[in-house]
Structure formats: C-alpha cells, structure tokens
C-alpha cells in the first residue's frame, strides 16, 4: 500500500511566559498508509493535537517535516492541504450561520461554486443526516449535531485523507455511535485514509487498522492491535478496586512471589477529589497474571488475609489499555 502521510522527526517547542521552553512533541516519526484508519491514542496533553496540527499545516514544526501524498506540508502547503480534510476537536463553525451557510462558505474556500457546490452540500447534509435542519443556525444545534456538521465541513473537498481530532468529545452515546460508524464508512466505502486521535481506548480498538500510542510528546508504541498487545504478552489484567487501606510494598512483593502466574502488581492509592478534597477515588490494584481467572481466588484470599477491603474485581483480556499501562505505569484515564 502507498504511504499517504510520512512524518519525520516532528518536533514542537513552545516558549513559556517565564522564558523557559516546553517540548510538546519530541521527534515523532509516523507513516500512515492509504486507506487505513490510523489512531493516535494517548491521554490528554500527550501531544496528539499538536502533532495533528503540525501535519495539517496549522502549526509550523520547530523541527522536522511531514509529507502528504508526496507534498511537504512546510514547503508545498497548498498542494498538501488540497489532499486533506480537517475535523478539529472544537466545533470550528460559525454559530451565527446555518448548517448550509457554513458548508457553502467552506466549500467556496475549496474552490467549489455554483451547482457543484450546492450538490456537494446536499450530499453531505444527507450523509450526516441533517438535511431537515440545514437552514437552522448552528447555535441552535445539539452537541452531536454540531459534531456532525463539523465532520461534514471536513469532507467538502472529497479528500483522500482526513484528520479527525477527538471528534466524539462531549457528545451523547447515540451521536458517538453515529460518528464512529461514519468514520468506518469513509474507509470502507470511500477508501479514505483517516488519522484519528482519541484518548478513548475503546474507540481506537474499534476503528483502527493501526494505532500509535502517545505519551509526553512521544510515540511510545505503534502497530496493529495484535502487535501492540503482544508487547504485554498473553497476560490478563485484573482490576481490583479496594477500600482506603494502603497496599504496601511487602504485600505486593509477596503476591508477585507466592501466587502462581502473577507477573506484576501496580497499586494506585485513593486520590482526594472534589472541593477541599472532600471525596476520594477508590484505590486500584492492577495485577498482571497469566491465566488471570485461575489466579483470582488466591489473589482474593491474600488480600482478604491482609485486611484489604475488596469492592470490585474485573478481569480483562490483553488490550491497548494494558499496553499503555505496561509501557507507562499509568492508566490512560490518568
């Protein structure tokens, strides 16, 4: 397959008000193949939006370059931008204009006009199922409807490549499902290449042909889901929510040594949240174990004997969350 996006050593450094610098993206290399959905998965602040902003020409890289369909985004930005559509995380639409007026305006910016513009706008309004609301102002739409118009605006020029930056943030499950189905449809029916950023592991797992996991401005792992989960082996992950008791190093050590199949134990103590720290999150014990279900009774017994109050237990097959946890020691939601 042909490479649609090829980024090399992309780096972005920002200057803080006090004169110090912060490196938001630290030399990212990326290859996205034509016709695939590639997801950048990582927690908030990992550098996903900055990376996508550099690849789309919104932000100039401090170092490095990216080629879109063979055109450099820094040296041939016009040619590169003609090949891509962009769906930003924010609702980048004029709230005072109707859905149709917004799409018509951005369509004109792509050089469309007359009947071809009108036809394309009609198609997209049908595609996102908003033809009946086309004359209503955007500021009267629900969050999900705004997201759909936002997506349609990125498809006006029928691009072979589309960037979607967390397109399901802040919407109801029904609208989210509709957007995820639309993304798959774009790949499967229109052979479109999609660069998708998300902090939700489930979305990345459902949509992606390949995933790049980002943390602290770096891609720490990249590959298909199978390739990535292989990195953490065949281990199951047991998520055990506990009471406020502290799980000490001694207990963790004894679990690792004495329970068959247990390879690693991580403990996240409870965190104070809410006003004045009035509430706290439950403590979480993550146990990596081969044949987790077999090891579970002994794990519960050990914790019980140590006086740890067990609130819930979940056994999870190897997934991207486990990969992230294994690579960073933190859960994606952290």
């Amino acid at each position, binding site marked *: 397959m042909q490479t649609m996006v090829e980024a090399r050593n992309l780096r972005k450094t920002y200057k803080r008000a006090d004169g110090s610098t912060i490196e938001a993206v630290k030399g990212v290399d990326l290859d996205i193949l034509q016709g695939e959905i590639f997801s950048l998965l990582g927690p908030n602040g990992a550098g996903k939006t900055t990376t996508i902003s550099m690849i*789309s020409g919104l*932000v100039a890289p401090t170092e490095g370059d990216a080629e879109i369909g063979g055109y450099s985004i820094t040296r041939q*930005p016009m040619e590169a931008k003609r090949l891509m559509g962009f769906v*930003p995380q*924010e609702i*980048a639409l004029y709230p*005072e204009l109707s859905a149709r007026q917004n799409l018509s*305006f951005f369509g004109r*910016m792509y050089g469309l006009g007359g009947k071809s513009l009108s036809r394309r706008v009609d198609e997209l309004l049908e595609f996102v199922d908003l033809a009946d609301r086309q004359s209503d102002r955007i500021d009267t739409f629900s969050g999900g409807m705004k997201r759909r118009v936002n997506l349609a605006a990125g498809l006006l020029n029928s691009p072979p490549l589309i960037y979607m930056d967390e397109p399901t943030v802040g919407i109801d499950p029904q609208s989210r499902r509709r957007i995820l189905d639309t993304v798959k449809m774009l790949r499967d029916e229109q052979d479109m290449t999609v660069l998708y950023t998300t902090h939700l592991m489930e979305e990345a797992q459902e949509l992606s042909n390949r995933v790049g996991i980002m943390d602290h401005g770096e891609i720490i792992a990249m590959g298909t889901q199978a390739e990535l989960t292989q990195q953490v082996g065949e281990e199951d992950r047991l998520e055990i929510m506990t009471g406020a008791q502290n799980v000490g190093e001694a207990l963790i050590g004894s679990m690792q040594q004495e329970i068959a199949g247990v390879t690693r134990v991580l403990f996240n103590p409870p965190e104070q949240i809410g006003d004045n720290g009035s509430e706290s999150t439950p403590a979480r014990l993550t146990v990596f174990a081969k044949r987790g279900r077999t090891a579970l009774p002994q794990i519960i017994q050990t914790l019980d004997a140590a006086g740890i109050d067990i609130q819930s237990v979940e056994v999870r097959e190897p997934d991207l969350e486990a990969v992230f946890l294994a690579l960073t020691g933190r859960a994606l939601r952290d």
Partner: protein
Amino acid sequence: MRSILTIILNDLKIYSSQRGNLVGLLVIPVLLTVVIGWSLGRIGGGGPTRLRVDLIDLDGSDMSAQLIEELRAANDALVLCPPDNDADDYCRLEDEPLDMDRAIERARSGRTSALIAIPAGYAAALNDFQTVTIDYYSRSDPMQPGPVLQSLNAVLQRTSSASMTKGVSSALLDNLTNAVTLPALDGETRDSFLNTIYHRALQLSTYQPPAVLFRVVDANEDESGIDNGFNQSAPGMGSLYVMFTVLGGMAVLLRERRQWTLQRLMALPLSRAQILGAKIGVYFTLGMIQFFIVFAVGAAFGMDFGSSPPALLATMAAFVLCITALTFALAPWIKSEGQANGLVLLLSLSLAPLGGAWWPLEIVPEFMQTIGHLSPVAWAMDAFQDLIWYDGGFTEVIPEIAVLMAAAAVLFIIGIRSFKYD
C-alpha cells in the same frame, strides 16, 4: 483574490446577522450625529456665534456712539454688554452695574471674550485730529487676533481713515479761505461741513470691502445654519464610531481563534497572507461603511463635503486603515472578550475627544492641541476641516494622510508579526 472576497463577504454576513452590531453600526451613530449636529448647529450654525464683549463708553459722545454702532455692524456675532443684553441676561450682568473694574475682571477670567473701553475725550481728540487710545482687554493671544479684535481693528481703521479725511479737508478749507476771497465761515458752519466730510468718509469706507473679513456663519446663508453643526458632527461621530466598529474586531479575532474557525481556515489551501488580508479587508470595509453611513446622515442635513471628493475619500480610507492596523496590533495581546470590549471603550472614548471628534480642537488650549495630535482622530479631523470647512484640496491634506498612513504601516508591521493563528 476570490477567496479573500469570499471571506470578507462571509464575515460581513456574520456581522450583520447580529442585531446588536447593526444597532452599533446604524442606529446609535445616526442618532448621535443628528443630535450633536443639531446641537452644534444651534451653537455654531443657527446664526453667528455670539461673543460676549463688555463695552465701557467713558466718552458718551455721538462719535463714540457711532463707533459702537460701527462695531455692532462689523460683526453681528458680538453681543455688546450691557447695551445689547437681552431679557435672558446673556451678558450675565445679573442686574449689577458694569464698571471698569468689574469689566476688567470679567475679561481676565474669560467670562467675556473681551472688554473695549472708549476713553473720555474720544470725540474731542478726533475733532482735534489727536491720537486717541481705545483700551482692549482679552485673554486671547494678541499675536493671533480673534474675531473681536479683528472687528475692532476693522472699525478703527475706518474711523481713522474718516478722521484723517476730515483733517485733510480742514486743512484744504483753511487753504481755500486764505487763497480765495471767500466769506469767513463761522465755527458752526465749519464744524458742520467737516462733520459731513467725516461721516461721508466713514460711510464710503464702510461700503468698501472691509480690510478684515470675519464670518462665523456658513457661506450658505439661506439655510438655517444646521450645516455648520453637521460639518463638525459627521466627521467627528464618523471617526468615533469607526473606532467602535473597527476596534471591536479585537474581540471577534479572539473569538475566531477560540471557536477554531480561524484554524479551520488555516487548514484550507489558503496562504496566511490571504487569510490576514481578508481579515484586514473585513474591518477596513466595516470602517468605510460606518463613515459612509454617518456622512450620508450629514448629506441628508445639507452637510458641506468640500470640493475634493477624492481627497475626502483618501482621508477616510487613511483613518480607517490606521484604526484597522491598531486593531491588529492590539488583538494578539487580548486574553478575553471582556478585556477587548473594555479596551474598545477606553480607546474610543479617549482618542475621539482628545483628537477633536466631539468639539473642534481650536477651542482647547494649545498644549491640549499638541497632546491631541497623539490621537489619529486629530489628524483625520484636521484633514476633514481643511476639506470641509476651508474647501481645501488634495495638496492641503497630504501631510495628514501621510501621518495616518505612516502610523498604519508601523502598527501593521507590529500586528502582522504578532498575529496569532492558533
């Protein structure tokens, strides 16, 4: 170019979709221009400006009365106090007698434009062809004679000429009676003859074009005088509301960044120069529309536009460009819409009066005129005055346009360098 025009039209559509903007662009400026135009017309255009002048006539002669009459005729804007005081006590005498000390104090404090004191013996001195001194008290700069002094000078020039003619005639009469055998003239006949000569000379000099011409009223004398008010209020309110409208762009640019429509434009196949050019074009267009609206109101009330429309247009364009540049220079530093709105009010309501948008700078002290020229409004108003009040042409306003364009260039360099696209 097509993309730039499309962005400009789209932004104008968004601007006009908000009722508040239309009120700010149309209703308030129009109302204020009309109200202030009428008000200024009543003060400055409903007839000649009234200038309060105290008059002390210590001579009380026919000749001094004649001088007063000449003075009144020379400039009907002068209200001579107390003889011309009206029922509303325009002279502010408050039924108190006006003596010399009080009149001097009133002139010194600025409560009157001037004090003219005709000394005792004025008529006798004129009859004897002697020099007589009329005292003139005023706070105004003697190097820049105001309307009262100009009028007085004109009258005194005529009086002196008439007196001189009388003197020459007297000498001629003496020569004639000595050279030719004529019956001796008695004193009364002689005085009557010479006075007739004096009055005739005075009359002739009065009908001759005056040496000094002072007019407050507009040239269009058959109008009610409203024109004068709009000649000041339309450019003034136009400049003020151009600032309100164009500087308001700071908040819009911030909002565009925050709602990511600016970033979406950046992701389109458009250059930064095209996007920036379009955004500058939007605010330049809005500023020009604002000027046209206010000037249209002035036109409806018979405002004078001078005789050089291209120069007027160039002045408007230079001012709007300067304010647009100021908007782009400040926009990158704005952190919230509240901050932007506060700054719009602060700048508009300080730069406009400072620059003479609300009243002519001529009436403020000299140091304030100097400070006022820190405001671009002052340069624009200077140019508008040259064109509208004094019927100037392009050449007269080139310096003002050059200053506005230079300021625009500097501000654009700052604005374009620091413009935030994300």
